[in-house]
């Protein structure tokens, strides 16, 4: 491949910044380093950056507000992986609401970070930007269900929550991001690789049938997910963005 992905690592801790940079370079990526928001903006303006690794806990302007500003500015298309200090649901939710594409919890391993970076880049490459619908909304409606993207559960018409497993959620998310579009098993596998990609060994077919069960979608009717013989699957319900849950 002629193109080398360019990663911008923003962390106020010099050692972490450099060690992460060294590891990413060793693994064939081009790396720039920034110590704070100012340096980050300068780097984004002067060179093409494919992905930003952003520390949340920084003196001055913190990572969350940097991320939000990034999403509002001209570099809005650049994917962001957050380095969060706390393994906490609210941090994860806030981070993803601020527009981050993924996050890694400190203390992280460099291998884990690299895997996340690669997954996010692959995902953004696969998706034309106009199809990344669910990024914007916390609540997505389709059929008789609403999907709460921050709490990762389905809501029925009475408002009862039906939680999804991580893999089910990622698969459904890919489907509602690409409604009416045939997705191959390879595509689905790539897009749904989760945090524990190495250990994920269920076949996509099994996962689809599990998700159908969750949606109450009988295999015969296939009202939500249709099997397209020898091609893959298609999500056949229209998708509505509903904004924040009521």
């Amino acid at each position: 491949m002629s193109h080398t992905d360019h990663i911008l690592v923003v962390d106020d801790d010099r050692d972490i910044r450099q060690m992460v940079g060294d590891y990413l370079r060793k693994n064939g990526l081009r790396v720039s380093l920034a110590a704070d928001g100012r340096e980050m903006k300068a780097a984004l303006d002067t060179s093409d950056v494919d992905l930003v690794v952003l520390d949340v806990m920084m003196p001055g302007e913190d990572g969350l507000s940097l991320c939000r500003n990034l999403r509002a500015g001209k570099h809005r298309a650049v994917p962001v992986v957050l380095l969060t200090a706390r393994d906490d649901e609210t941090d994860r939710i806030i981070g993803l609401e601020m527009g981050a594409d993924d996050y890694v919890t400190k203390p992280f391993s460099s291998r884990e970070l690299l895997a996340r970076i690669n997954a996010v880049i692959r995902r953004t490459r696969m998706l034309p930007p106009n199809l990344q619908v669910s990024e914007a909304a916390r609540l997505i409606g389709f059929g008789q269900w609403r999907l709460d993207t921050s709490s990762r559960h389905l809501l029925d018409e009475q408002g009862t929550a039906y939680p999804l497993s991580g893999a089910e959620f990622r698969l459904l998310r890919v489907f509602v991001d690409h409604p009416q579009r045939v997705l191959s098993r390879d595509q689905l596998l790539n897009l749904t690789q989760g945090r524990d990609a190495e250990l994920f060994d269920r076949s996509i077919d099994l996962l689809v049938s599990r998700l159908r069960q969750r949606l109450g979608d009988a295999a015969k009717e296939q009202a939500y997910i249709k099997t397209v013989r020898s091609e893959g699957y298609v999500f056949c319900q229209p998708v509505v963005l509903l904004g924040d849950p009521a």
Partner: protein
Amino acid sequence: MKVLARPRRWPGVPRTLGMRLLLILAAGLLLAHALSFALLFYERAMATRGMMLAGMAQDVPLSVALLERLSPSERAEWLPQLQRRTYRYLLRPAQPGTPLASERARQVTALVDRSLGHRYALRARAVSRLPERYEVELTLRDGRPLTIEVTPSLLPIARWLPWVLAVQVALLLACAWLAVRLATRPLVQLADAANRLDPAGGGVAMPQDGPLEVAQAARALNALQARVSAHVSERMQILAAISHDLQTPITRMRLRVEAMDDGEAQQRLLADVGQLSQLVREGIQYARSANVALGPTVRLDLPSFLASVVDDYQDMGKPVQLGELAAVALHTHPQVLRRVVQNLIDNALAYAGGAEAGVRIDAAGLVCIDVLDNGPGIPEASLEAVLQPFHRLESSRGRQTGGTGLGLAIAQQLTQALGGRLRLANRDTGGLRATVELGTAQPTRASAD
């Protein structure tokens, strides 16, 4: 804590302060009441006797003179009209009896004698002692006997008097009971408040109104609660701050070790760093679990919830199974409940190598989430202690299994935050049963999966 020796009990003395106060007050009031009534009766007896004597002094000479004038045949007709409440006249000699016994009787006889101007020879005889009755015999001028039968008695008591007495006593008892209640209820409230005292500061403050002493005690208790919760939250903040500040150096260590050449030393260091970071992570979780931000509740379908948790473990290749799944939904906080169940499953995985999670409704109608394992279980004596932070069983393979001693404490704290209760019990078949008792069940969607 030093507990004062219980004072020796008197048999028969009631245990409660209220009962004792009531007993003392009631006894005192009844006694005082009885005394004043006795005095009243005595006074009344004296007065009636005085009246009787005065009446007799005028009445007896008149009656005797009248009877003297009447012919013997007419006398019997007049007797009823001469009769008084305490004495009457009889036209017969006195019954045989003993000489007068009481001073009073002799006084009466002397009075009769004086009022008759000592013109008659009187023979007084006591006929009966209880009720006292005596007869004074004299001989009329025509030689016929006349006997004055005296039956001294008090004026009869009015029919309504016992009722008034009963009402008075009842009134006194009611007042005593009210006073005792007023005095002891704040004590009960204080004890309740002390029981509810929540180290995390969530307890309910005592109302500081009411009588001065009660208000003072309430203020003192509220201040104590505030101090305890300030102390606890300060310690939690310190724990969180330390844990948090440790993460940057641990991250540096980890990255540095990973950059080293592969080898046994690197593996060992990585394991150490992993343990360190787990301890830090759970330390933060524990510090936060005391006052976790709950947010709004959601009606959660519990079978789907457990399936999603278990699926996540299975996707990571962990031996976690679904058990009994009752169709129930419950208003709760899914993220917090998820952490509770995950911690219980992690504990089962660490000590038993596998876990089974299920949901059922118990006999009391409570929704119970069970996490079962087939491990060695926990000695009965330690079932409570393992819920304490940093507690590990002596015999456990603690660090080798990766436990920090915080997982169950976090689960316990979070369960309490959810308004539930965490119970541990050894299963009959061996292994541990961790039960999260939540609220009462709500019917679930009829057309469940």
